[in-house]
């Protein structure tokens, strides 16, 4: 046995995770944190549906309802969906390209802790005087008028976690460009890696406008600026533009990795190469590019004028084309294949009709003149839940089942997995299909209640009933996770038996250096090629040698903690409390001190020696 794989106590394990820079452990951290926030956001969703189940309900008050919807949206997008996607990117992408880690392992840890502290900060608002209540879009006039510190929590929390995301994006871009294994050309990269690449590029260009928007709002709310105050010359439309220049690419940041996960699943469980691989890559890049050209379709009713509305309407419709290409390529990947309906495949299969439904309502929404009717109604709510739940959440649930053995070395129970799928799937359609009609019948979104006599009663009751099903699905999944972890039956390299890409060529979970020797990639679906030639593993591309690894570090945690502390100072500074400014300075000093320490201290990592690797024979790529 290796000297690196010893049993550790709880304290040591905790310390290990607090200081880790290993992409696989960071992936687990993202999965846990993102999963917890997903449960919080889900609970908020349940409260929303309880409140709206009957007219004139008083389960929650009007103000509290606005806090709940704001936090539901913000949590689900920023603190659940994105981190869960980051979990899979971290867990899988480096393995798929045959790398030993990401380009900047230290920065990777910083990214996680920034996201984590940002998320915790945002959610602390519940206990410190009230959550933000201006909607997840936080439109400026309402956000500036909002009393208390709710919106301040939103501004500061998102800035902190946004920095983390931005750094993560850069990290993945560099990793994919510089650290591919020998033979892994761009056009041999698995589609999940491609979508990680395009997503990271979107993050890089989409997050700065959000940061600017948040900074402007912070200046307005906390430091006396007037960006959004009409009486002082300000203009709230600037916020709408900045928010949506970020916000539209953001939905592609979410959906492209989902497409990537589904592409892997379709190909694996059909035992077929992805149909039209190069057009899939092209479509992914095109969707990413067009994602920046369409933001104003969220603002059709803002009053930008018919010219802008017409241009953005046509540009938006254009996105339907590459998305359609993808749908048909997936269908034809299965066509002629040998399709096995595992739990991940259930989600992937159900994703197609669901996402097509969400996609076509997207095209309907793109028709600007008609959108004046749909805008800000339940029709829009239904549309984006069809794409985000039917696309992103289905992918995350599928990915959890698919990659669980790779991340934890044990398989989730398939029967329970399918029960989760069916309850969630049925509940989902029951909840959201009817909402299209609610919108068309005249029900605006973000209403804390509705009056009787407008024809909304039955549909809302059905919708709330469906939400109960979805909750049951999630609970079954939690039970599944607990049972699986308790049993902990270990599995081999390729537990699904249909693995095609490099991550399935190495043990589950992989050793911390991933590949003992970097593999030689001979084509798309590198592992599949070797399997078809009757080989058990990859051909190594290099002789066995020393491996250079980065050191663990506690600094990422401290850096992020500093900003977390500083945020409290900045926020309470408005109330003129005496301790606010010192706390803010202290926090910033902690962060900059940690950065300074990092840059001054020598940290060259360490080497795993050849001899140790040879002892470690039951791990890594077999030559």
């Amino acid at each position: 046995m290796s000297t690196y794989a010893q049993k550790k106590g709880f304290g040591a394990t905790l310390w290990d995770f607090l200081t880790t820079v290993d992409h696989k452990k960071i992936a687990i951290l993202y999965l846990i944190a993102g999963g917890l926030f997903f449960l919080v956001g889900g609970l908020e969703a349940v409260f929303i549906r309880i409140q709206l189940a009957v007219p004139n309900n008083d389960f929650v008050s009007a103000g509290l309802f606005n806090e709940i919807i704001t936090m539901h949206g913000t949590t689900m997008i920023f603190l659940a969906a994105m981190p869960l996607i980051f979990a899979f990117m971290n867990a899988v992408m480096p393995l798929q390209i045959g790398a030993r880690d990401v380009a900047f392992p230290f920065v990777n840890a910083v990214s996680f802790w920034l996201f984590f502290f940002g998320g915790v900060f945002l959610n602390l608002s519940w206990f410190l005087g009230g959550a933000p209540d201006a909607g997840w879009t936080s439109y400026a006039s309402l956000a500036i008028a909002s009393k208390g510190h709710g919106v301040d929590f939103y501004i500061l929390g998102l800035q902190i976690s946004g920095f983390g995301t931005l750094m993560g994006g850069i990290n993945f871009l560099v990793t994919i460009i510089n650290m591919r294994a020998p033979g892994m050309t761009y056009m041999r990269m698995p589609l999940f890696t491609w979508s990680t690449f395009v997503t990271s590029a979107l993050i890089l260009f989409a997050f700065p406008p959000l940061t600017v928007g948040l900074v402007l709002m912070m200046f307005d709310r906390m430091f006396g600026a007037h960006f959004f105050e009409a009486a002082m010359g300000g203009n709230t439309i600037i916020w709408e533009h900045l928010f949506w220049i970020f916000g539209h690419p953001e939905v592609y940041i979410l959906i492209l990795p989902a497409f990537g996960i589904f592409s892997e699943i379709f190909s694996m469980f059909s035992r077929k190469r992805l149909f039209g691989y190069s057009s899939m890559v092209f479509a992914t890049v095109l969707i990413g590019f067009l994602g920046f050209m369409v933001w104003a379709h969220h603002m059709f009713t803002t009053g930008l004028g018919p010219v802008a509305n017409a241009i953005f309407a046509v540009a938006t419709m254009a996105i339907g084309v590459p998305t359609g290409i993808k749908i048909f390529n997936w269908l034809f990947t299965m066509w002629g294949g040998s399709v096995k309906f595992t739990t991940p495949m259930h989600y992937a299969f159900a994703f197609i009709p669901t996402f097509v439904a969400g996609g076509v309502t997207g095209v309907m929404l793109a028709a600007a003149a008609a959108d004046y009717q749909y805008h800000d109604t339940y029709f829009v709510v239904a549309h984006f839940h069809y794409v985000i739940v039917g696309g992103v959440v289905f992918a995350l649930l599928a990915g959890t089942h698919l990659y669980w053995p790779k991340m934890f070395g044990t398989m989730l129970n398939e029967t329970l997995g399918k029960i989760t799928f069916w309850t969630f799937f049925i509940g989902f359609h029951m909840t959201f299909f009817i909402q299209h009609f609610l919108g068309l019948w005249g029900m605006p979104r973000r209403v804390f209640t509705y009056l009787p006599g407008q024809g909304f009663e039955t549909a809302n009751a059905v919708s709330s009933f469906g939400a109960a099903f979805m909750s049951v699905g999630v609970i079954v999944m939690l039970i599944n996770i607990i049972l699986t972890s308790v049993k902990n039956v270990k599995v081999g390299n390729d537990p699904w038996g249909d693995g095609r890409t490099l991550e399935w060529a190495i043990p589950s979970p992989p050793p911390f250096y991933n590949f003992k020797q970097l593999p030689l990639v001979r084509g798309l679906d590198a592992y599949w090629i070797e399997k078809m030639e009757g080989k058990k593993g990859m051909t190594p591309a290099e002789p066995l040698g020393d491996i250079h690894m980065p050191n663990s570090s506690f600094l990422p945690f401290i850096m992020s903690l500093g900003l977390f502390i500083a945020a409290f100072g900045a926020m309470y500074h408005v109330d003129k409390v005496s301790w606010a400014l010192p706390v803010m300075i202290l926090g910033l000093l902690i962060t900059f001190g940690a950065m300074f320490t990092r840059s001054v201290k020598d940290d060259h990592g360490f080497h795993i020696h050849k001899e140790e690797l040879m002892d470690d024979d039951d791990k890594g790529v077999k030559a």
Partner: protein
Amino acid sequence: MKRLAKWRLISLFAILALVLSGCGEPYLSTLNPAGEVADTQYDLMKLSTLIMVGVIIVVMVIFVLVFIRFRRKDDTIPKQVEGSHKLEIIWTVIPILLLLVLAVPTVAATFKLADVSPMDKKNSKALVVNVRAHLYWWDFEYPGQKIVTSNELVVPTNEKVYFNLKSADVKHAFWIPAVGGKMDVNTENVNKFWLEFDDKKANDAGNLFYGKCAELCGPSHALMDFKVKAISKDKFDAWVTAMQDVKEPLKASTAAASEGQEIFNKSCIGCHAVTPANKMPDTARIAPNLSNFGDRSRVAGILEHNKENVKKWIENPETYKPGNLMTGKYGNLSDDQIDALADYLMGLKVQE
């Protein structure tokens, strides 16, 4: 796997049942268009739905075939296909054509609905309404007629009505679903658009359309409703004249109401006007104009219009519209005072 097919069948029937039964209420639903704007939008909806249903059918046919024909039966390895240029061209070109079919009418409609040139012409005869959105109520000024009313818009049918929209506090959106799509009410600029109210459809809807705020604006966003009385041109003109004739606040007709008027003049008139003339600038009109309160169909835009509800509202507006700006502005009134006040308000009628 039979369950899957069955479920699809059931959901299909459910959809069908919904489509047949559900066009919503005639005074509220976008699927019961009651005017040129809503018609245009409804046509676009139908066109896009039609195209999209076509796409869905194609996808579903392939989807079902895959499900039936290609399930794993044995361990044979299927042929590894790279792709097909012919197919790829087909599913690139056809969607582009379909989208063009949708794009052309979309662009045409977008320009048509944005055409407000008649209201900007000099000596224009067009009917213009200046809409000012306030936290949870709506102010309607008719600059050409020099009158103001609140929470209940009165419009003539079968002619274009032009709107200037501006907010007094935070962003709102002005929406009369059955009559046409919404437009945002911004804090920094005036947005303009037009609507047309169809006479026949207005009759079907009892001459009263529901209007809503469609942009989250605070706790009572959900309750920021208004009503639209769409009446024939003649009746509208009569209403305008009746409104213009009210130069002085209407005199109370009963003893109780006179008492109420006194209370009103002490506690309420600071914010609420009871004459319809638009002499004050819009920024000074900080509460709903009550000149024709007795003629309206809802109290505060939401409650059924009767004396009981007026009293309840005055007693504690916070219960009915959380976060409204009226709560706590008029001191404590006794039950008798509120009763008198309600009598007075219910008597404020400009027309019989």
